[in-house]
């Protein structure tokens, strides 16, 4: 997303000669490349050490099925990071949308084809609310979403108390279990959404404007970009993606309760940040975010395969991220020295 999406068709002759070499070197040094390498190596290593169990259809399906939501939730955070803000409410919002949709299907008798877009709309609406609060009060989004997170948390619990909803929609749950070409449908859907997000940021006018606002708000404003609109758009999109995550959760899990989303806040930051998204805004990486989610999922599965204590996993994940941080800094230093 950062540099790899640029596919210049022609270049002035002066630089053309060195271009392929430069591009190759740049690709190799990009954080996406590192992530691809880690993901591939990790996956192969895990496959080898589990005697190929990783490649059995059940394991693969479980692997990708539970990758869908972290991917989407990472993207939901990424779109606000793109404007240099944060959305602490993504996790609870996912839970809230899931609970409302389940409630709509079970207690209001709404059919799934209505409840699903309803959940997404709800997410977008709440996101828009976050955006409006940020724009009108000019309070830091971190704090605004901290407050709305508390509110949504209350609402999420209010839907059904501590109870669990089950059997809301046979069709939706079938979809959650279905596979296409060996991949779970939920994962493929997540990929489609990710592609959409990539397209939005790479190719569309609002997407570019949003990134410009994130990169240098003042410059964007002077170029006629409305930063307020970018903020609203980013938060709405974030909410919409949380709604999508809610729908995927509903489909794949078969039961939901007010705890849905509690596990999403930290991963929502981990994925884009490991994926190379700058917290300062202006840079996004859809591929990096998805790859980071993939790597985190690998850690999960490794833990299950080898029955490692979860606490060790936390320790290892923390250490690995710190390691990536350090290696990134070292890589940068090396590349600077060599150039």
């Amino acid at each position, binding site marked *: 997303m950062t540099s790899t999406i640029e596919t210049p068709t022609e270049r002035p002759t002066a630089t053309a000669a060195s271009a392929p070499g430069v591009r190759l070197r740049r690709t190799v040094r990009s954080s996406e490349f590192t992530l691809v390498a880690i993901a591939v190596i990790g996956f192969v290593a895990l496959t080898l050490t589990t005697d190929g169990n990783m490649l059995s259809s059940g394991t693969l399906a479980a692997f990708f099925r539970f990758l869908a939501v972290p991917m989407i939730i990472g993207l939901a955070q990424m779109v606000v990071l793109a404007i240099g803000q944060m959305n602490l409410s993504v996790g609870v919002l996912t839970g809230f949308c899931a609970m409302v949709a389940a409630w709509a299907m079970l207690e209001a008798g709404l059919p799934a084809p209505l409840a699903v877009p309803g959940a997404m709309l709800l997410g977008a609406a709440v996101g828009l609310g976050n955006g409006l*609060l940020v724009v009108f*009060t*000019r*309070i*830091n989004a*971190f*704090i*605004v979403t*901290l*407050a*709305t*997170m*508390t*509110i*949504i*948390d*209350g*609402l999420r*619990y*209010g839907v059904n108390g501590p109870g669990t909803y089950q059997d809301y929609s046979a069709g939706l749950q079938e979809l959650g279990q279905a596979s296409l070409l060996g991949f779970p449908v939920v994962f493929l859907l997540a990929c489609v959404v990710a592609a959409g997000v990539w397209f939005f940021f790479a190719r569309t006018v609002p997407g570019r404007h949003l990134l410009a606002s994130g990169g240098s708000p003042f410059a964007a404003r002077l170029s006629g970009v409305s930063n307020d609109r970018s903020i609203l758009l980013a938060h709405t999109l974030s909410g919409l993606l949380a709604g999508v995550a809610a729908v995927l959760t509903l489909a794949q899990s078969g039961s939901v309760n007010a705890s849905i989303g509690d596990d999403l806040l*930290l991963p929502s*930051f*981990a994925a884009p*940040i490991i994926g190379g998204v700058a*917290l300062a805004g202006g840079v996004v990486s859809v591929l990096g975010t998805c790859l980071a989610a993939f790597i985190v999922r690998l850690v999960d599965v490794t833990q299950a395969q080898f029955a490692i*204590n*979860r*606490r*060790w*996993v*936390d*320790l*290892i*994940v*923390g*250490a690995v*991220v*710190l390691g990536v*941080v*350090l290696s*990134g*800094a070292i890589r940068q230093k090396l590349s600077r020295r060599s150039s």
Partner: protein
Amino acid sequence: MKQDDNPSPPEAARQAARLPLWANPRIGLVVLLIALIALFTTLRPAFLNTQLTLVPMQSDISVYAVVGLSQLAVLSLGHMNMAVGRMAAMSAFAAGLLHDRLDAPLIVCLLGGLATGALLGALAGLIIARTGVNSFVVTLALDFALIGLVSLLYATFTDGVAFGGLPAGMSALRTDTFADYCAGDVCGPEIPLLAPIALVAALGVGLLFRWSRIGREVLMTGANAKAALLSGIPVNLRVVQAHALSGLLAGLAGFLLSANNGSFSAGVGDGFLLPSFLAPVLGGTLLVGGAVSVLGTVLGTGITQVIYKGLNLLQFQVDELKLYIGLVLLAALSLDRLRHVLAERRGVPA
């Protein structure tokens, strides 16, 4: 938003004359605090019950003010410390271990805990300074690592989750107020023993950022790291120091909470993260660095705790409670924002 700067006397007088009272952020907070107390007292007279409301509230304010100061220490740089809670937990573990294994007295346990926190903070600071990676990322990763480490340590050194005993005198910190101590007929006020510890911390941090060279240089680093470097400030050292201070204060908060809860346990610090941001931000400290307000942080803590206590007294159910906490917070923040905008419109810096 500046750390309580006193302009030179004649200017101070001139500015004070120009400045409407409500335009002072600290006064705004005090007014808000009083309004909230008045509101809750009207709704629930029990709000002024000394033994059951005011004393426990002071203990909580003491703990969370230190938590807020811990975050403030790095907000001064424009950094964040996502690992406040876990640094507190590690400190509490160290203090507990000192007591459990070496039978160390209270003060040694406290110092050991503080040292542990400071070291962890310094570690985070060192990584940030060395790699230049965003503090959010580094401390988040550190938090993850420490979550794991804390419980592994407790699993190794205790029968699972907590140390059995407390050093002598620590229960007194929890249970006693100065009213329990009398010289002749004169007894102290109904203030818990924890409060002065937090007060000393607040004064220390205030002194640091207002008058000390190190504190000011930290603020300058937060304001513009490049310019700081070119002004001869050892920027990396200041980053490490600010994070170490954050860790130290997190450690102190962990100790105070352990005293308040009555044990050194793995759960210490679990709920620190959000309040740690809330108090400084409510108090007017920006997330961009370069300026802090210690008094504001303490007031911010006071306001959040009063809101919690008041809503608790109103006996809301879970969902309503959360709803109202969020709404009241938003309202408080928006009011402050409104004050700021009005002040700006009148041409006075707020």
